[in-house]
């Protein structure tokens, strides 16, 4: 290749190697901020693509997930091979590869190293962790290593920025003058098997749609299963398969082929290492050994673990609280502000209740996601995640999960969204899918408002066994409903759909490292961004759809009816009262009376928060009332005008109340008349056995964008307006007194329990389903989850209602 040609060339480089070897650090050091997450269709693993510059050339770098071997028994494991050979759609074919090797465990790192070298792509070895190796008394002769492998070796330390220029220039040279292909000393029968199979594959080549390579023939021969095998079976049929097994048997010579492969590779590596590596045995234990002595200790280790997990849970739960309130508050304010500038109508409602509320509903999840990933990123970088998995594996394996499932499951109690995103730490696909499926069963914080409303309204305040609050007990039980449902679900998944031959849980416990702020920040940025981009759009779309279903057809008839009522009410009042606007006429006498009244209401609200019991509250209210009356009387005594204004104020207040009532009735009727309300009526027969009526059924549908929406929807349908929350006394009272068509009470304890159980088990959360779709890259899982959980919730609520009802609840 000429110099002129090299000027503007573009190259594609893949980064490969074991996990925890410093690939991502190198990737970041090479590409800086010019990187994005690559979307590999149909798989759950993730790679990143970025660009690096060297002199005049531009290098596209692909950071592949770390693996210990190129063996491809599952589609996910196949990704490494496919990416290396440029067979992934939308991802460029690499012209070369940087093999990242950890000097402190060079032997094991070289295992995949030899596999990659056999593919014969131009390769450079980046040797990392030389500092760690030296601290353990290991020295690596870099020149010897390079000579032995037949490719250049460059020592780097990406976090410290060392060796990067050398790596880039070496890479540049190698791309133009590649080294030799590695050849290992396989047993004769084995090698003959590889060659025979390779020829067979070449014969199949046209039908396969790609040209097979010799290393792939080796993989197919040894792995004997997996996606490549399936493809060959499909195009080659019976004939190929019988030939394949014949070749295999001959090549194996009575032993296992993986044994041949491993012994050949590790045999060669062992021989090389005698020349390349020197180990001087050090007295005493390494830092990692000492720390592990504590962190995996029976007592201290468990204690630290409990404290760390408690901290994570507490943080997701409470640190994110203020942030979420802030988001909620600012979007509420934004909605009001924008709403104030628009005239009433469908567009305003769409913008305020559909779009702004929907965007707020997406962003509200960010704090929890960021807090969880802050911990995951730090603990992963530190090396503690592997220890946590080590500690919890026994417990989690009982449910078909593994130690890595623990943190996502725990996070599920705060919110299923970060929990599902957190399953990325689980390498095994089936375990990851099981964990994703189970996470929404954990009772998240969005269910709390539902519990709080119904427990406060229907569960009597009393103690059982003398000291346990019954209300608290019911709340506690609700948290267990999900767990109890999750256990058999896990076992069914494990035995059924996701049956895996007890996937091995071989876990490297890497040495402890100091977490780097930049890498942690990067993770947070990536996770937050990918949530907003990929899940956010779906959540927003669902919010707008449900808004539309609750808004339309918004018939003129209803509006006319209430406009007429309003006009009638208003006709009894003088213009001065009708037009009084407390914000504009702030100095007027009316406004002064209103200020006195507002102060009274504020005192009452404070008392409601603070009061110990009903008696104290009543007293506080009557005291405040007396104060208000006294102040008003004082103002009225000042002049005749003031006295007259007092009676005007009373009129205005009565008018305001009537206006509010009419607006709430209007909202309620629009909702009943809406598609959502009609849907409620349609499903009424189905939800009747749960003790529900159409209003509850509708509220359940309306809560699809997010469970807590049920509270506001009930507020609207009971004509209280949409601003009620679960702490609202009025809502509690109204709910208690609501009646069915026949005049009987709508809500009983049995109905309340049935609603709570339904919400404990249902998948009424568009965000969860959207994230599930994002993380599994398929609609299959969210749909399955929704159907399964809805059926389960229905049965759970049915049984709860029927039993509680029979017991007289």
């Amino acid at each position, binding site marked *: 290749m000429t110099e002129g040609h090299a000027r503007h060339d573009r190259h594609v480089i893949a980064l490969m190697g074991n996990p925890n070897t410093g690939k991502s650090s190198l990737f970041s050091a090479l590409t800086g901020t010019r990187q994005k997450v690559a979307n590999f269709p149909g798989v759950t693993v993730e790679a990143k693509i970025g660009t690096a510059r060297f002199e005049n050339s531009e290098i596209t770098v692909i950071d592949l997930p770390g693996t210990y071997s190129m063996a491809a028994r599952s589609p996910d494991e196949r990704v490494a091979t496919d990416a290396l050979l440029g067979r992934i759609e939308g991802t460029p074919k690499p012209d070369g590869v940087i093999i990242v090797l950890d000097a402190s465990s060079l032997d094991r790192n070289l*295992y995949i190293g030899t596999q990659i070298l056999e593919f014969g792509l131009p390769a450079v070895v980046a040797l990392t962790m030389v500092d760690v190796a030296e601290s353990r008394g290991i020295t690596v002769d870099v020149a010897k290593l390079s000579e032995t492998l037949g490719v250049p070796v460059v020592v780097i330390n990406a976090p410290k920025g060392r060796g990067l220029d050398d790596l880039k220039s070496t890479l540049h040279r190698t791309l133009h003058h590649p080294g030799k292909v590695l050849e290992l000393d396989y047993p004769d029968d084995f090698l003959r098997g590889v060659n025979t199979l390779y020829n067979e594959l070449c014969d199949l080549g046209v039908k396969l749609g790609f040209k097979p390579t010799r290393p792939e023939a080796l993989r197919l021969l040894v792995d004997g299963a997996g996606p490549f095998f399936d493809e060959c079976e499909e195009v080659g049929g019976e004939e190929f398969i019988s030939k394949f097994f014949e070749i295999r048997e001959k090549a194996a010579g009575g032993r296992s082929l993986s044994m041949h492969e491993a012994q050949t590779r590790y045999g060669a590596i062992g021989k090389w290492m005698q020349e390349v590596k020197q180990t001087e045995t050090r007295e005493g234990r390494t830092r990692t050994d000492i720390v592990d002595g504590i962190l995996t200790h029976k007592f201290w280790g468990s204690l630290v673990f409990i404290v760390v997990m408690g901290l994570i849970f507490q943080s997701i739960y409470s640190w994110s609280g203020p942030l979420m309130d802030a988001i909620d508050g600012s979007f509420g304010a934004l909605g009001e502000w924008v709403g104030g500038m628009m005239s009433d109508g469908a567009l305003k409602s769409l913008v305020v209740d559909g779009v702004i509320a929907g965007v707020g509903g997406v962003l509200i999840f960010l704090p929890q996601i960021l807090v969880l990933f802050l911990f995951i990123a730090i603990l992963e970088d530190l090396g503690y995640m592997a220890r946590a*998995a080590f500690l919890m594996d026994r*417990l989690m394996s009982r449910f078909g999960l593994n130690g890595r499932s623990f943190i996502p499951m725990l996070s599920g109690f705060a919110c299923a969204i970060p929990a599902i995103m957190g399953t990325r730490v689980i390498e095994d696909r089936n375990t990851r899918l099981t964990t994703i499926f189970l996470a929404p069963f954990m009772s998240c914080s969005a269910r709390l408002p539902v519990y709080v409303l119904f427990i406060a309204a229907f569960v009597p305040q009393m103690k059982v066994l003398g000291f346990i609050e019954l209300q608290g007990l019911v709340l506690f039980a609700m948290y267990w409903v999900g767990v109890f449902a999750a256990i058999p679900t896990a076992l069914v998944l494990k035995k059924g759909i996701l049956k895996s031959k007890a996937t091995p849980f071989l876990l490297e416990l890497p040495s402890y490292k100091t977490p780097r702020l930049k890498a942690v920040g990067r993770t947070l940025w990536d996770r937050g961004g990918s949530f907003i981009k990929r899940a956010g759009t779906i959540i927003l779309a669902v919010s707008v759809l449900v808004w539309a279903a609750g808004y339309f057809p918004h018939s003129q008839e209803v509006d006319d009816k209430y406009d007429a009522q309003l006009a009638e009410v208003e006709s009894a009042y003088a213009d001065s009262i009708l037009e009084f606007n407390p914000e504009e006429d702030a100095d007027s006498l009316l406004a002064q009376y209103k200020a006195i009244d507002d102060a009274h209401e504020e005192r009452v609200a404070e008392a409601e928060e603070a009061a110990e019991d009903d008696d104290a509250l009543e007293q506080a209210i009557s005291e405040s009332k007396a104060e208000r009356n006294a102040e008003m009387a004082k103002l009225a005594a000042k002049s005749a005008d003031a006295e007259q204004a007092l009676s005007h104020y009373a009129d205005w207040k009565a008018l305001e109340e009537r206006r509010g009532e009419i607006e709430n009735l209007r909202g309620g009727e629009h909702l009943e008349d809406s598609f959502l309300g009609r849907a409620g009526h349609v499903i009424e027969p189905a939800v009747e056995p749960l003790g529900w009526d159409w209003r509850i059924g509708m509220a359940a549908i309306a809560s699809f964008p997010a469970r807590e929406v049920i509270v506001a929807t009930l507020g609207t349908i009971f004509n209280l307006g949409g601003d009620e929350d679960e702490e609202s006394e009025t809502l509690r009272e109204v709910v208690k007194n609501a009646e069915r068509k026949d005049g009987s009470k709508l809500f009983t304890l049995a109905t309340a329990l049935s609603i709570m159980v339904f919400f404990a088990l249902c998948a009424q959360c568009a965000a969860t389903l959207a994230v599930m779709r994002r993380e599994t890259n398929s609609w299959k899982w969210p749909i399955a989850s929704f159907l399964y959980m809805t059926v389960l919730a229905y049965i759970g609520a049915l049984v709860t209602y029927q039993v509680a009802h029979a017991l007289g609840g």
Partner: protein
Amino acid sequence: MSTGTLDKLPIGKSARILDVGGEAALQQRLLEMGLLPGVDVTVVRQAPLGDPIEVKVMGYSLSLRRSEAANVQIETTA
């Protein structure tokens, strides 16, 4: 000299691997991770709940379940 399986090796003891068996995928994984005949392995500790165990092999720490370690045949020289 005595032979046995890795899951039975007491904590703190070392042994040499004689053979590695198990279902194909598991055997392959064990071999890839460096547990193969002729290699020395030391049991470092067990998790507080008794399973999995941590072993040192080829200079690094590996955690594996006892059921998996049962597929590794070993001999102790002491």
